């Protein structure tokens, strides 16, 4: 039998994450974060992690960053963040403190560029010429070229070891659907990771999801765990 995609607990699903891994954390503004997987990662304790994610804004909560990511940072497990916005201004907390103290590396990438670099990584594209960063600090050190449409900057693909995504439902083959804003980064991050772990609100049998409705086909989802 093929490797079973269903995992009994979030801890089991993240247990093999090695020190030094790069993890894509899907979610936007409190929607679509795999909170259970992030909490399990805190228990597993892998360190020297690079997290790629978009934090705020959090209109409904005090904190402008994601508590689960803050916990990992507090716990000394994170060495680098790649993000367009790792915390909402004025609410950086431990992320801002560690960064200011030189304990945490942060690479800022505009979000449209970041998502396209992830797509390139997931789709086997060697690089994309995008107009977005032209004239800004984000073109520094990159090749700039003139096309018939205008100037563009070469952006290189980005891949990761793991992706943590939150899905509304997954079938046991890994086919997944989302609810509303939870879709956001998830389908692209699922493509760009070697191992994508889905925390699912509902796990169903193959055939229960409308094949027209599936956003992340099972080829992109390697592990499934039930959301608490």
């Amino acid at each position: 039998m093929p490797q079973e995609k269903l995992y009994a607990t979030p801890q089991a699903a993240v247990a093999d994450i090695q020190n030094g891994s790069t993890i894509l954390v899907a979610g936007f503004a409190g929607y679509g974060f795999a909170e259970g997987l992030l909490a399990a990662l805190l228990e597993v304790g892998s360190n020297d992690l690079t997290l790629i994610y978009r934090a705020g804004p959090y209109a409904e909560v005090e904190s402008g960053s994601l508590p689960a990511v803050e916990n990992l940072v507090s716990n000394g497990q994170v060495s680098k963040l790649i993000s367009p916005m790792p915390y909402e201004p004025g609410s950086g907390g431990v992320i801002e403190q560690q960064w200011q103290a030189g304990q945490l590396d942060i690479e800022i990438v505009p979000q449209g560029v970041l998502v396209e670099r992830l797509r390139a990584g997931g789709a086997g594209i060697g690089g994309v010429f995008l107009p977005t960063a032209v004239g800004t600090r984000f073109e520094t050190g990159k090749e700039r070229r003139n096309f018939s449409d205008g100037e563009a900057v070469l952006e290189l693909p980005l891949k990761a070891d793991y992706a943590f995504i939150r899905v509304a439902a997954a079938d046991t083959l890994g086919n997944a659907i989302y609810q509303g804003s939870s879709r956001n980064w998830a389908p692209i991050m699922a493509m760009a990771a070697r191992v994508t772990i889905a925390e699912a609100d509902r796990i169903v049998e193959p055939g229960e999801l409308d094949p027209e409705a599936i956003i992340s086909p099972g080829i992109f989802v390697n592990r499934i765990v039930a959301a608490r």
Partner: protein
Amino acid sequence: MVEGKERLPREVVAMRVAKELPDGGFVNLGLGIPTLVSNFIPEGGVVFYHSESGVLNCGPLAEEEEQDIDLINAGGQFLQRVPGMAFFSTVDGFAMIRGGHVDVTVLGAHQVSATGDLANWMLPERGVGNIGGAMDLAAGAKQVIVAMEHTDRQDGAKIVQECTYPITGKGCVSLIVTDLAVMQPTPDGLVLREVAPGWTMEEVQELTAATLIPAPDLKEYEL
């Protein structure tokens, strides 16, 4: 003499290829012998089929009375609707291929070289050809297996030292399974791993335009 000597049926070639498919893997099958491979998945094994027509987890072909023009594979054959299917656009279908998410593709070929160059999109005498998804599969799938007849109908060699036809991909083929032999292209040349029952290495060599290097454990075709 090899002339007229019996070769393995297409089904056996397909059966031999089926052994190579990773359990639980994602597989894209080309037309011809490759299509037959799906009939020979070992008992208890599961393989998920990807088609660049825009569907994952394809099942069997549809009977004539249930043919649906909105449900085809990349060869234009009608598919049955089965549980677990997912539809997607062509750009996502090829992201799966190029992005290394498809484990194995099984393709036919006009020529394969000793170092694994693949030529399967154009016969020079026609002057025009169809690339379709072949170049993306050659460049993107984690493993490219060629399944074909060892020679053309006139016993002309299809396995060559260097391709003379326009190539589909360079050094991309990792295994060649024919009705006479199983061969492994390597940077150092073509390694002969298995020969069909009743055939000798010398006889296979006679029908092969690349130099065969016998594997240390060269054996009979293993099903």
